[in-house]
């Protein structure tokens, strides 16, 4: 079942082609890895899917529905969440409040609910806190639940960022280099989290430079260069693909573990 289908996606900025007739799909509950050299258009792809940029040509279909060019908040409400290459969290708020923030589009209290604090609103707020505590524990952030987000360590912040996007209960999660800047230990923690995300039923589209991580965790790969698809397939076939190796990995083969 194709959860996300990208068809002939094309985007130019000025004279530069960031994405060129890119086509691929993400299946339900799979982890698809995107690899490619710097500047090959991976983050642009995320920006196109989530609506930050509008593509010049092509289609983005999510669960069969055409979401091409829809606004970011609309895409998020439909069930696609993302993290950013540069850590993006709500400063001045505690970790708990950050996660609660993520639950925004899955809750409904409006102005009347806020003013009257009726039963439904209070129940919703209670559920928000409970689910947020669960999420923090899932991310091994329980100890820092009330610390202001900007005071967390870099790795903690990146996990928090994942948590915020997970709190939107997405069906597809776009992770942009989640392990960037992490130590081996922190990376292992992140990998475990991503694996459990898949187990819990969310598909993942993963941009990752750390090949060990990527090879370990991804079900399939696509390799991109200059905005076009270079290759697609299983970890083994990608690792053996000559063009991928030349473009991205240098002339040596990659180790699979």
């Amino acid at each position, binding site marked *: 079942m194709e959860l996300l289908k990208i068809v002939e996606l094309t985007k130019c900025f000025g004279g530069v082609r960031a994405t060129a007739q890119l086509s691929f799909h993400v299946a339900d509950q799979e982890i698809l890895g995107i690899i490619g050299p710097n500047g090959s258009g991976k983050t642009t792809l995320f920006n196109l899917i*989530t609506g*930050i940029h509008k593509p010049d040509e092509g289609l983005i279909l999510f669960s069969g529905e055409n979401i091409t060019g829809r*606004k*970011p*908040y*609309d895409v*998020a*409400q439909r069930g696609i*969440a*993302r993290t*950013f290459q540069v850590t*993006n*969290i*709500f*400063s*001045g*708020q505690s970790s708990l*409040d950050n996660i*609660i*923030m*993520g639950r*925004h*589009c899955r*809750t409904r*209290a*409006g*102005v009347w*609910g*806020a*003013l009257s*604090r009726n039963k439904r*609103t209070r129940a*919703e*707020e209670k559920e*928000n*806190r409970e689910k947020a505590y669960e999420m923090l524990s899932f991310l091994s952030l329980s100890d820092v639940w009330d610390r202001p987000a900007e005071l967390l360590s870099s790795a903690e912040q990146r996990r928090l960022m994942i948590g*915020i*996007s997970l*709190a*939107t209960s997405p069906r597809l999660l776009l992770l942009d280099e989640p392990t960037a800047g992490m130590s081996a230990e922190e990376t292992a923690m992140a990998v475990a989290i991503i694996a459990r995300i898949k187990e819990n039923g969310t598909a993942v589209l993963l941009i990752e430079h750390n090949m060990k991580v990527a090879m370990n965790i991804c079900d399939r790969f696509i390799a991109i260069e200059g905005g076009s698809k270079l290759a697609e397939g299983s970890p083994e076939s990608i690792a053996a693909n000559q063009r991928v190796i030349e473009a991205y990995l240098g002339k040596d083969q990659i180790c699979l573990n």
Partner: protein
Amino acid sequence: MTDKTNSHALYLWLSLIGLIILLPWFLPGRYYLFLATMVGIYAIMVAGLNLIVGFTGLISIAHGAFFGIGAYTCAILQVRGILPYWPALAAGTLFTALIGALVGKAILRAKGPYLAIGTMALSILTALVLMNWQSLTGGASLGGIDGPGVLKIGSWHIDFYSGKTYYYLVYLFVVLSMTGVYRLIHSRIGRAFIAIRGQEELAEAIGVNAMRFKILSFTIGCLLAGLAGGLYAGFMGAIDPDIASVGMSFNLLVMTIVGGAGTLSGAFVGTVLLWLLPEALQASEEYKPLLFGIILLVIIIFMPKGIMGRVKELHPALNKWVK
């Protein structure tokens, strides 16, 4: 910033309400009662501006214009005999909110200095219209506003011409407004506002329709300004287009920022301070813009989060007591 019943803040709030109730009996004269009532009227609209500027991060220099629209709508409806005071007040408040929503929808796509100057331009335009559309607004002055008058309920008389009674009326609305804004801030809606203020891109990425919430915040802020306007009209009996001037909008902005944009208590503190300080210094009316300018400059350079913002920074424990 989501908490359940915050008992510390509640005690403080209740004591404050007690103080407000007792105050008129301790004031040494009519003038001070007048002052206290004006503080209340201003506090309502500064709370509104605080919502827009402090919690949602939008610079608006049009708040005075909405105050004026609220005042004039209420006044015109009553002076022309179209509606008695209470429905006129409600109509003025709602009409101002409506205009706020329309203006917001039109102009809130602009950001930063564009938005600031745009709202300033709207402010100037509003004052211009109020002055020049003489047939509607009476031009340089609109008088003969009866206000709520004497309310007869059965055999009870509530005489709103009395200073004390009007004081309690205004502060009833102050308490209602502050409670409303407090609840709003500590809710899903308030969280959305704060998210937009700090990180709009991230907010959008998690499903917050930033434009819709900006308009909502602006509308609520304008509603409060309209309410304050209607109360002002009923209080003063006569109004003039100066109340919608850019100068008024500047003053309101100063009160918001000095008190602490982004803190609810700041709205009240800023209003009280900027009304009492000129009194304490025995500064006449002409010194006020200079004084306000100095205070604004000093605060924005040395204490950009305002007085209450700084207080909360220095004593985080106080967060339990003060919002």
